[in-house]
């Protein structure tokens, strides 16, 4: 047997390959990103990064209409962006099968909220599968395409951080030969106007009834929903990561109804299982969806009275709730300082933020590496909501508080986030005669999700050269007359430019341009050097918040700045912070 140790995300990509998928379009988002990165390595499948999740979903949906098996992936909040096409795609159905993977992030390892994407499945009446390990990631992906085509519906595949980012063993199979189906014009099916949608809604309701039967019958035959009977004193219903935690914690001291299909939920299977056990418990991370289903069926069940709506679970969560077992361990006796993530040494965002510091600005923030600038010592962010909101919310803030405020307020948004949904915001500013100043932090990459190419950096998902969006021309085309580019490592020039642009009675767009320090193509300088005679140990350089800087003592006991040469890439932003000229830029490496 050919097998491989794969991340859940890698296994989904393998499932796409084996399912004979032709078209993949996604927008990166932790913890979903690697699915499409791995998929792009299979040359038999077309793959792309889309500008945002809505576009990605629509590309995949269009491909499905065109008869190909198609796929898109996104994080949980990405599905909010793609919700518009999802809800109507559910009415239209498919030609070739279509699957949308959505990765939740319980515990918020890398997200701004903890929403439960099962609500989207229920509200859009789209069937949803949820695997519990990498083998199931591969298998359920393939099954999802079969179900999609059998029931004429797009499918959702729900993942979570501990499924997407855990490696386990996957059995590898060959790629299925699935030809692209014929496309026939069908206005009643594919054009959603009220007259057609009324009929389509009836179809959707009937489909969900048929799917509920499927959940009780064929889903069991296919191994999607599973009953495992051991001790009948306790019966546990769980799906995905919650199932593996339960199984680890309780072993054969409980029986399990493992749900691989989380929308729609089975009825007979749940009732029969409940009848076999003395006590029924539902274990689910985030919301109480399975529990509510059980209550609707009139079952006596415990769920959220034992388990939280908050955060990520583990087998310990289950042990604590259901047993008296307590672990024994030694602790370190002193306080251990926290180690929050920080902007990397040499990060271009640091130069920009340091330039803005001390100007008394309101900074409307956005989603990306640069959100880390909200933390001390830079502390350069007043708000952060969702992709693109920095621009539109700044406009609202400035309208509310008047033009004097607009001269003390800016938006910061990364290149990929700007392409994702910042462009509509700048159009709003111009169209409605705003005077806001927007700074695009163009580091030539989608950084936080681990370096994905994007429409502004001139490279495709496979690294091939392509047309890149000309940000300056774009801003001018929508009506910005004042558009400037600055190098954020030139702190003085950046500061002067921002001051000048803020004073203008018109909207301004500043592009703070320098590639991410972690890009392989970026050449680093030698580490900066501290002049021992000049450094007085004032610690002013620490205000740039660089992880390569710290302080120590000279031989005479006086303080001195220290440079960690393994981290420092010689960007020299700290040198700008030193009034005594004690930090010298090194030569080129």
């Amino acid at each position: 047997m050919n097998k491989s140790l794969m991340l859940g995300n890698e296994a989904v990509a393998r499932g796409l390959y084996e399912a004979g998928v032709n078209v993949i379009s996604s927008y990166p988002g932790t913890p979903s990103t690697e699915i499409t990165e791995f998929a792009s390595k299979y040359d038999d499948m077309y793959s792309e990064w889309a500008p945002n999740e809505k576009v990605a979903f629509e590309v995949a949906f269009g491909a499905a209409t065109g008869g190909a098996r198609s796929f898109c992936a996104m994080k949980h909040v990405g599905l909010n962006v793609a919700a518009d096409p999802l809800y109507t795609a559910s009415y239209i159905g498919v030609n070739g099968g279509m699957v949308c993977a959505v990765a939740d992030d319980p515990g918020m390892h890398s997200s701004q909220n903890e929403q439960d994407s099962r609500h989207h499945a229920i509200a859009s009446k789209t069937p949803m599968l949820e695997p519990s390990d990498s083998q199931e990631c591969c298998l359920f992906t393939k099954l999802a395409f079969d179900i999609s085509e059998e029931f004429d519906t797009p499918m959702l595949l729900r993942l979570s951080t501990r499924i997407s980012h855990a490696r386990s063993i996957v059995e590898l199979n060959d790629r299925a030969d699935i030809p692209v189906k014929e496309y026939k014009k069908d206005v009643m099916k594919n054009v959603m106007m009220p007259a057609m949608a009324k009929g389509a809604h009836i179809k959707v309701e009937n489909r969900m009834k048929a799917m509920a039967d499927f959940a009780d019958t064929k889903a069991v035959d296919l191994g999607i929903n599973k009953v495992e009977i051991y001790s009948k004193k306790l019966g546990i219903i769980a799906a995905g990561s919650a199932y593996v935690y339960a199984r680890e914690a309780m072993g054969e001291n409980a029986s399990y109804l493992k749900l691989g299909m989380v929308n729609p939920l089975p009825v007979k299977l749940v009732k029969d299982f409940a009848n076999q056990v003395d006590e029924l418990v539902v274990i689910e991370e985030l919301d109480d969806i399975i529990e509510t289903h059980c209550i609707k069926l009139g079952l006596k069940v415990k769920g959220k009275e034992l388990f939280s709506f908050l955060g990520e679970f583990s087998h310990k969560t289950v042990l604590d709730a259901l047993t008296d077992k307590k672990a024994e361990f030694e602790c370190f006796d002193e306080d251990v300082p926290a180690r929050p993530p920080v902007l990397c040494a040499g990060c271009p965002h640091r130069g920009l933020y340091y330039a803005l510091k001390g100007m008394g600005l309101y900074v409307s923030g956005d989603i990306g590496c640069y959100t880390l600038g909200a933390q001390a010592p830079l502390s350069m962010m007043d708000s952060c909501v969702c992709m693109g909101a920095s621009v539109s919310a700044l406009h609202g803030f400035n309208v509310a508080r008047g033009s004097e405020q607009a001269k003390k307020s800016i938006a910061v948004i990364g290149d990929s986030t700007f392409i994702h949904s910042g462009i509509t915001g700048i159009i709003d500013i111009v169209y409605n005669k705003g005077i806001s100043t927007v700074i695009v932090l163009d580091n030539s990459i989608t950084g936080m999700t681990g370096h994905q190419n994007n429409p502004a950096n001139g490279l495709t998902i496979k690294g091939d050269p392509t047309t890149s969006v000309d940000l300056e021309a774009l801003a001018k085309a929508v009506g910005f007359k004042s558009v400037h580019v600055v190098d954020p490592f030139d702190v003085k020039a950046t500061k002067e430019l921002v001051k000048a642009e803020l004073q203008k009675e018109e909207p301004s767009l500043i592009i703070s341009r320098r590639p991410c320090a972690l890009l392989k193509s970026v050449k680093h300088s030698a580490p900066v050097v501290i002049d021992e005679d000049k450094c007085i140990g004032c610690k002013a350089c620490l205000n740039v918040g660089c992880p390569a800087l710290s302080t120590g003592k000279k031989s005479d006991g006086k303080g001195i700045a220290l440079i960690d040469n393994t981290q420092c890439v010689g960007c020299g932003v700290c040198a700008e912070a030193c009034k005594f000229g004690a930090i010298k830029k090194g030569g080129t490496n």
Partner: protein
Amino acid sequence: METKNILIVGVGGQGTLLASKLMGKCFMEMGFDVKVSEVHGMSQRGGSVVTYVRYGDKVFSPVIEKGEADIIISFEQLESARWLSYLKKGGVLISSTQRIDPMPVIMGKAEYPAEILEKIKEKEINLVSLDALSLALEAGTAKCANIVLLGAAVPHLGIDKETWIETIRSTVPSKTIETNLKAFELGYNS
């Protein structure tokens, strides 16, 4: 066989993911069921990072909880202190002596505890400490401190050295095989 638990902890960017990937692959090839759980995304940017490696006949949970780790491999002293409570009674802590100040310490808002490893040793914990960074530099690059630490852990993993060497050969980029094998030997013999 009861499931064995290995925790790999360090600072984002130190190369903890390669160490866990190598281990996972090696255990799989030995015929075990394996789960390796990683955190990607925001925590990688210089934050505290942890990877869980579990192997045995059948592994369900991908995570390790307090008091459960048979071995902790720590890339940094403060992280050894932070994750100490995850060590099982009788478990082994393998810690690099490297110190990386977190931002609250750099800013003077918190203090980096003094003599962390000495204090851990006083608790009669089975501690193996080594200067993985210097050994990595001796091997050729600071980047292979992860393989030095893996080498130091191997005598406690109960799988012969040759199997690990083969796994390294078949996993790391061909250009870096020699450096990584040198790093492995330096760690193994430390």
